[in-house]
């Protein structure tokens, strides 16, 4: 079999450059396998993040030929054989080294999510219908690869937005909680005022890169935007909530973490 050439970005916060590595092609490999062979034979200190190598943990996100992808799920046969493959770190986050970027922004946003708060457990335990849990289950498939955050132009092109913009990964978390059959917190005002939901202009870039094929825009962000609007302006929805007795805690209460 022929050789394969990889152009890998090497460097740190102070700068860097592409290094070219050529190695024999091996049948059935994914990009992460080739990166591992470079580590083992040519560059022992080449930094990359990975864990499960089965598309389940979302650690090995990178930009391959400029497009965000999980390295463990990117098969070498899907790239043209006669061209080098370029691998760079996620661009929306600060660089740590080589292919590893500092994704701590996402963990800060996770800490800001007002926690799940169920009602007291009724006699005989909670009952929920499959159809009602399925909506949240779609969003809970998220493996936190953060590629949706990487391609979201609100984050990618505007560093200044970060402190007040949760990004698609966390919009699906807010949507999940909003649609959770048991949750009693109302986060609608919070997600609008503090988490920048309005800045998303639904270009669907996030949906396109999601390795779990979650319909981020259609099933999470748009319904969430609608619910936020309803909360303020729709008297019918208000009345409906009264009749169905969906009593959620006020935004002010919701923004406060529950006691231990």
């Amino acid at each position, binding site marked *: 079999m022929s050789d394969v050439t990889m152009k890998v970005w090497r460097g740190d916060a102070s700068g860097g450059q592409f290094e070219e590595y050529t190695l024999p092609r091996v049948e059935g*490999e994914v990009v992460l*396998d080739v990166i591992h062979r470079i580590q083992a034979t040519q560059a*022992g200190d080449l*930094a990359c993040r990975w864990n499960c190598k089965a598309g389940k943990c979302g650690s090995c996100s990178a930009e391959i030929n400029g497009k965000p992808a999980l390295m463990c799920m990117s098969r070498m046969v899907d790239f043209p054989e006669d061209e080098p493959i370029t691998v760079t770190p996620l661009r929306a986050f600060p660089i740590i080294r080589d292919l590893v970027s500092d994704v701590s922004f996402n963990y800060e946003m996770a800490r800001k999510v007002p*926690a*799940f708060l169920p009602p007291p457990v009724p006699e005989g335990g909670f009952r929920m219908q499959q159809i009602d*849990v399925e909506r949240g289950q779609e969003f809970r498939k998220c493996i936190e690869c953060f590629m949706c955050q990487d391609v979201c132009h609100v984050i990618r092109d505007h560093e200044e937005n970060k402190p007040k913009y949760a990004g698609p990964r966390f919009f699906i978390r807010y949507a999940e909680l909003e649609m959770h059959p048991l949750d009693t917190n109302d986060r609608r005002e919070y997600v609008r005022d503090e988490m920048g939901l309005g800045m998303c202009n639904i270009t669907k870039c996030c949906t396109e890169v999601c390795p779990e094929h979650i319909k981020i825009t259609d099933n999470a962000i748009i319904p969430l935007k609608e619910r936020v609007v309803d909360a303020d302006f729709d008297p019918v929805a208000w009345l409906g909530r009264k009749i169905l007795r969906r009593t959620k805690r006020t935004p002010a209460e919701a923004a406060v*973490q529950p006691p231990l």
Partner: protein
Amino acid sequence: MSEREHHDYDVIIVGAGGAGLRAAIEARQRGLKVAIICKSLLGKAHTVMAEGGAAAAMGNVYEEDNWKVHFRDTMRGGKMLNNWRMAELHAKESPDRIYELESWGALFDRTKDGKILQRDFGGHRYARLAHVGDRTGLELIRTLQQKAVSMDIDVYMECKVTRLVKDVDGAIAGLVAYWRPTGEFVTFGAKAVVMATGGVGKSWKFTSNSWESTGDGHALALWAGAELIDMECIQFHPTGMVWPLSVRGILVTEGVRGDGGVLRNSEGKRFMFEYVADMFRAETAESEDEADRWYDDHTAGRRPPELLPRDEVARSINSEVKAGRGSPHGGVFLDIASRRSAEFIRRRLPSMYHQFMELAGVDITREPMEVGPTCHYIMGGVKVDPDTAATSVPGLFAAGEVAGGMHGSNRLGGNSLSDLLVFGRRAGMGASDYAEATGTKVMEEAKVTEYIKDALEPFSRDEGENPYDIQHELQEMMQANVGIIRTQSELETAIDKLGEFKERVKNLSVKGGRAYNPGWNLATDLPSMLTVSTCTAMGALLRKESRGGQTREDFPAADPELGKVNFTSSLVSGDSFAGEINIAPQPLSVMPDELKALLEEVK
């Protein structure tokens, strides 16, 4: 020398998988100052790869189910080598732990009347696994992670613990770690430390485990003076992917078989009917018709043999391949395509569909999968008190895969996720009780200095061994000599080779700087890998019988006398991988009569 970063806590948890997170939540609920330290980012621990479900006798699908049946199934699956008290606590407490997850936001699949749905799995008499499609581990870790984050537990991510440090009286006082992003060292003072570091699978070539599973917790505990038991008992999951080679070992959930998938050889035959051991004959179907009736109604037929415990199925697949009836790439066929509708398969097994489609180009709704055994789980581990998870070292606790005893010589699928919850919580309680009752401990500074120097040594050599070469050779060697079927001569070869690796690891050399240097990170994992591999090989040599996750070609039967002992590893010299390991038999604790009676009566 610049000022070293240092933090003090009441309780520190090493590892952020299911057990570690559950322990941290428990200790934090007690109002203690708690931190979690993990090698990777939060939420990436190996727990995310668990697929099938968490076993708990909630009786939502079969009312007949209860803790007594679950206890019996667990003990029989473990070939009676289990710590009976752990199996008892696990069977009794698992349902509460699952309901607790629900109250923290987990969204399990539901029954028609809105309860938590439970699925069938190997070795479990009733449908017992609470699940979310085939991504239950992800649901579990995300729920615990979100709960922990909401409680203000400090999490030190990408921070590798290299050593435990004791005080002058021999109690745990803290630990030494380094930040992977910078390579800078950091020390933590702690009154109590909970090891929740997971397994050891990365020492084998074909494994379902991620890079993190290097046995750090086992090794650190042993070096600190704790004992390990049953290290020879390694579970080879019967169904890992076998092709393409680069994904060989990746798990194919047992849920495929629970939902109707069957194993066939190259002749198209359902060969598992030929391999039913006497112990399971009374409850296993004799014909395909009978087995097929069982899926819809467990009273209309007995269980299909594809759902025997994992050790039985893995050995059978191995035998078929050896007899020349394997699939083109050296496995057997797992067929659900001809038995269930495409819609059913995609709904019940979404990530399996996804995984085969994207990695192997195989559509599992149309074609069978090629599968074979893969190194999956270590039943053995740190010896702990069943009720408190305390080790023999004051202040040191262990829970989850790193702890031994719960699963005996073979773990039933689904019992691991519930194990994490039950004993994670108990470790959190045990560590909190201990921390509340003890004063602040002071680490021996000389040891701290020594441990940091040890970890940095590979940078001091211009010429030396490449850590990647040693890892690669170790994996090849363990796969060849300490695999699913073992024999005296190969185990002796393994022990000799491990001795050679030990010398070579003393001469490691790494290039580059300390910041996010995977070569150096690997160099700091190798000592743990060698220690646990040595315990496994030595235990396998001493246990001259076949039982669960220990199969000896030269001793194919179980020996009733050996069924009464754990082989216990301890360090007899030094305090590192360079020390000498001794393994000796230790009698199991005696099961009370009322539990013994359960094993007989519930048929």
